[in-house]
């Protein structure tokens, strides 16, 4: 009896144990209770983040040549650097133990950047204010041209006398300044992906990606993995990567007369030519001048090998730490093609020492910077996450150390406090301190000395850079992120961080002087979606549960990718998230009306009857559009559609064009490219169901776009365009600048495997925008038919007719004085695309579409659509580049 009781007890305890074990295993399997270390699996989902970066104004010194005053503080006549970045991160199961991670990045940069460091009194930032000084008008800004004197005295300056380049005694002005040049807007795209295979306690990742911009392209691949030990309390991770990058940078044509490219020009007779593997220049000459190149392209290849090893350890129930080390070896051309270093040759006569106030001759040049062709970098990082129970908060502390054989040591300390508030809010303040020492070859200027026979006594150093990113400095920043889970699985987030970069914040002192100091800030907005959580909220498998909606969905599944605002959501409380990517190109012939016209005719009469200085060769437009839709009632759906744009246009010069001031235009005698990008206009719509029957739906969308895009992007200030208020071409602005009313009427129907539809939409502008013009109104009609081949594949055919008016009004003329003529500047460097009449027309297109509905997995029910829209006929106003076609890619999901 007793034995039985004992056995029962033992059995019960065994059962209890195994129940506990099962429970704990189940707990491990629950996504929310998974051990949340560095490798913890994020739920399938998509995150989108837009970040705006802006530098503050810098203290730039220049010289007023007309009054020969002291070096003066220049008011900002140029725009500080700004960047807009779009990040998209996605992760999803692709079957079995495989998971894919796909990321996309898009940046657009613009503004003025430092190209060198000079003594303020050298006048490298010339103020053109002299002309305005009498009436006290402000200085118009910095010239992008490096002003290098032939008889430069690099050691001492005194602007109190009339000739700053002669030897002076007395007041010495040794202040330095950055030499600024405004850069054209430039865009970059990066796509990278990773495939992961996971075992229970290990994983293997294989990935790669491409980053592409006008002057730089890099391709990379990586392999990595992790092993879990100790009931997943310990994780060991590793990774190796390889990157191959190619620079092909067109040097600033305005700077060419001043740049010293000898280090990159084999056979030029220099003593210090680099091996071609470390970069070389290619000079392109025009037909008329075999001595002065019309463009110089700097080529360079680099390779980066990287390896990382990491250890993550759970310390206790409230703390987890990670430690990782990394090594990166870089070889090849590691310099920045747009940075120069001012060099000075100083002649010493017998009996004279450097630094004495005596007569000696100086001469200078702006050398393209030369960094060593090899860099070995080691990094170590220690991270700690600590749970603060009384506040339900998480404290994160990260410290990183980096050291390289360029003699740079860097320390980064960052702390953030993640504080949940209520059910759905998370507020995260953070502080960060970064400090680095200078690279051994960082310099504000290089010197060589020669004796009375001009023989070199002290040669220029082998490596040199004035890029202040290689100087000693510290950066202190503070930020705040606020996020809110608006529905389960849908979060929105806003973040702000302010940075101050100071030479004297460098750890241990010895930082760069304050000429290199500046502030900058970032503002971010993010949307994060985790479909599984959203589906969990819906509870009944989304639409499947709704009677009759399956039929609706099949109609919409046949709607081509390029058709938008075509249907409202099925029921109150539903919402939809979608994304459309559009890529349009123009190229080939230039049309006049419906006919291709000879290039010579465009060159002679293309600009409002007058000759054009340039003609378009190719134009690309890319657009990213997010669709966020919500149905507050059964008959009404509200939609917000933010957009992200970028445009690029290449142009060919008209060799016969006669400029009024031909000197200033030498730099533009080759093909060149303009790029713009950033946030576009934002759409707001209400979609109303007019007819809602199983086989027929009619939807009216009322709304339009708010002018959140830009209409004031200006051309870069150059020798040919010496002012900063000449606008970029109409078609290259990212917005319309007006509040646009966009009514859309759509009909959709379907039976069995067939679906069909038609849509009429108009875009009506309200008045003129702040830049003085209005884009033409648009009317578009389209009709389509679709055939469903299986439950996941539908194809479509669509016919489209579009008519658009020409632009009304025009950009204002420049209000600034041309420093070359002393008269108001007149922009002559124009093409047909600068004529308001050369926009709009009538267009006929054929669209061919393929639509896929994902049959299974976390993304089941999502639709992916592709449509190629082929132009059939163009009948354009005035002169325009022929359209080559548009590709629409879209993804959407609804709940």
């Amino acid at each position, binding site marked *: 009896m007793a034995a039985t009781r004992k056995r029962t007890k033992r059995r019960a305890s065994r059962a209890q144990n195994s129940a506990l074990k099962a429970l*704990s*295993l189940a707990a491990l399997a629950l996504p*929310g*209770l998974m051990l*949340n*270390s*560095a490798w*913890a699996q994020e739920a399938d989902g998509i*995150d989108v983040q837009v970040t705006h*970066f802006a530098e503050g104004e810098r203290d730039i010194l220049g010289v007023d040549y007309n009054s020969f005053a002291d070096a003066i503080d220049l008011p900002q006549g140029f725009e500080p650097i700004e*960047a807009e*970045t779009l*990040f998209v*991160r996605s992760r999803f199961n692709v079957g079995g133990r495989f998971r894919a991670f796909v*990321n996309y*990045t898009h940046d657009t*940069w613009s*503004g003025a950047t430092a190209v060198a460091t000079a003594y303020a009194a050298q006048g490298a930032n010339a103020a053109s204010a002299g002309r305005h000084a009498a009436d006290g008008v402000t200085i118009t800004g910095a010239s992008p041209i490096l002003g290098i004197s032939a008889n430069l005295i690099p050691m001492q300056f005194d602007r109190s006398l009339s000739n700053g380049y002669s030897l002076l005694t007395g007041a010495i002005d040794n202040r330095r300044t950055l030499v600024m040049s405004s*850069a054209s807007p430039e865009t*970059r795209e*990066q796509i990278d992906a990773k495939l992961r295979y996971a075992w229970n306690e290990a994983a293997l990742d294989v990935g790669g990606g491409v*980053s592409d*911009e006008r*002057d*730089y392209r890099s391709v990379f691949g990586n392999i990595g993995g992790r092993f879990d*030990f*100790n*009931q997943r*309390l310990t994780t060991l991770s590793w990774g190796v*990567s390889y*990157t191959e*990058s190619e620079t092909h940078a067109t040097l600033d044509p305005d700077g060419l007369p001043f740049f010293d490219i000898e280090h990159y020009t084999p056979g030029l007779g220099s003593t210090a030519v680099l091996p071609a593997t470390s970069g070389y220049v290619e000079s392109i000459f025009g037909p008329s001048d075999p001595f002065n190149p019309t463009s110089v392209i700097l080529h360079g290849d680099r390779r*980066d090998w*990287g390896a990382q090893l990491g250890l993550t*350890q*759970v310390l206790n*129930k*409230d703390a987890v730490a990670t430690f990782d*080390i990394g090594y990166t070896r870089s070889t090849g051309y590691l310099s920045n093609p*747009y940075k120069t270093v001012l060099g000075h040759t100083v002649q010493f006569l017998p009996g004279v020492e450097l630094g004495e106030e005596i007569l000696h001759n100086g001469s200078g040049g702006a050398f393209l910077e030369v960094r060593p062709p090899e860099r070995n*970098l080691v990094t170590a990082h220690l991270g700690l*996450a600590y749970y603060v*129970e009384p506040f*339900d908060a*998480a404290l*994160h502390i990260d410290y990183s150390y980096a050291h*390289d054989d360029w003699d740079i040591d*860097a320390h980064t300390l960052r702390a953030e406090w993640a504080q*949940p508030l209520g059910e759905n809010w998370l507020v*995260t303040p953070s502080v960060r301190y*970064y400090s*680095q020492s200078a*690279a051994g070859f960082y310099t504000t200027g290089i010197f060589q000395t020669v004796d009375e026979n001009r023989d070199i006594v002290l040669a220029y150093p082998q490596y040199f850079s004035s890029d202040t*990113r290689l100087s000693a400095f510290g*950066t202190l920043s503070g930020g705040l992120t606020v996020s809110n889970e608006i529905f389960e699985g849908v979060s929105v*987030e806003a973040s702000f961080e302010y940075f101050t970069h100071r030479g004297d914040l460098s750890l241990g002192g010895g930082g760069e002087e304050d000429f290199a100091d500046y502030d*900058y800030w*970032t503002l971010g907005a*993010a949307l*994060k979606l985790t479909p599984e959580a959203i589906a969990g909220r819906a509870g009944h498998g989304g639409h499947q549960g709704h009677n009759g909606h399956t039929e609706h969905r099949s109609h919409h599944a046949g709607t081509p990718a390029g058709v938008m605002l075509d249907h409202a959501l099925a029921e109150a409380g539903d919402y939809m998230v979608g994304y459309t990517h559009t890529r349009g190109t123009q190229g080939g012939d230039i049309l006049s009306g419906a006919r291709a016209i000879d290039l010579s005719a465009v060159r002679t009469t293309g600009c409002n009857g007058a000759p054009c200085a340039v003609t378009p060769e190719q134009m690309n437009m890319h657009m990213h559009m997010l669709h966020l839709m919500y149905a507050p009632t059964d008959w009404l759906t509200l939609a917000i559609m933010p957009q992200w744009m970028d445009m690029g246009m290449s142009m060919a010069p008209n060799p016969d064009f006669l400029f009024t001031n031909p000197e200033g235009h030498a730099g533009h005698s080759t093909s060149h490219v303009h790029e713009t990008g950033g946030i576009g206009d934002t759409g707001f719509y209400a979609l109303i169901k007019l007819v809602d029957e199983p086989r027929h739906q009619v939807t009216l969308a009322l709304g339009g776009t708010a002018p959140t895009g830009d209409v004031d992007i200006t051309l870069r200030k150059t020798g040919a365009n010496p002012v900063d208020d000449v606008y970029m071409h109409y078609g290259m602005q990212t917005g319309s600048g007006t509040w646009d009313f966009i009514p859309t009427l759509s009909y959709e129907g379907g039976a069995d495997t067939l679906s069909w539809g038609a849509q009429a939409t108009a875009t009506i502008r309200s008045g003129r925008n702040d830049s003085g013009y209005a884009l033409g109104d648009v009317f578009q009609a389209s009709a389509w038919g679709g055939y469903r081949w299986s439950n996941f594949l539908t194809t479509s055919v669509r016919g489209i007719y579009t008519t658009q008016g020409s632009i009304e009004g025009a950009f204002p003329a420049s209000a600034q004085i041309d420093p070359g003529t002393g008269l108001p500047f007149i922009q002559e460097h124009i093409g047909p695309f600068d004529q308001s009449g050369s926009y709009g027309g009538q267009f006929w297109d054929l669209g061919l579409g393929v639509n896929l509905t994902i049959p299974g997995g976390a993304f089941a029910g999502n639709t992916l659509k592709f449509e190629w829209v082929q132009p059939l006929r163009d009948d354009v106003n005035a002169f325009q580049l022929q359209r080559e076609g548009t590709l629409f890619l879209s993804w959407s999901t609804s709940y």
Partner: protein
Amino acid sequence: MKRSKWAAAAALLGVVTLPGCTTVEPWERGNLAKPHMALDSNPIQTASREHINDSRQAMPSGSSAEGGGCGCN
């Protein structure tokens, strides 16, 4: 010789994983599992921040130097 190398490696592994002996049972991992306790609790923001920082300083913020473009501005 070979043996002592292995012994050293084993000892190193032991030292490295020693803190792991502090057992945290699965049902005690609730705090660690909270999303804001993840070592990188906001990956897209981390990527965005590192992208900006890497273009303003000489040394990389993360341990990987992949992609990111020229950063020439």
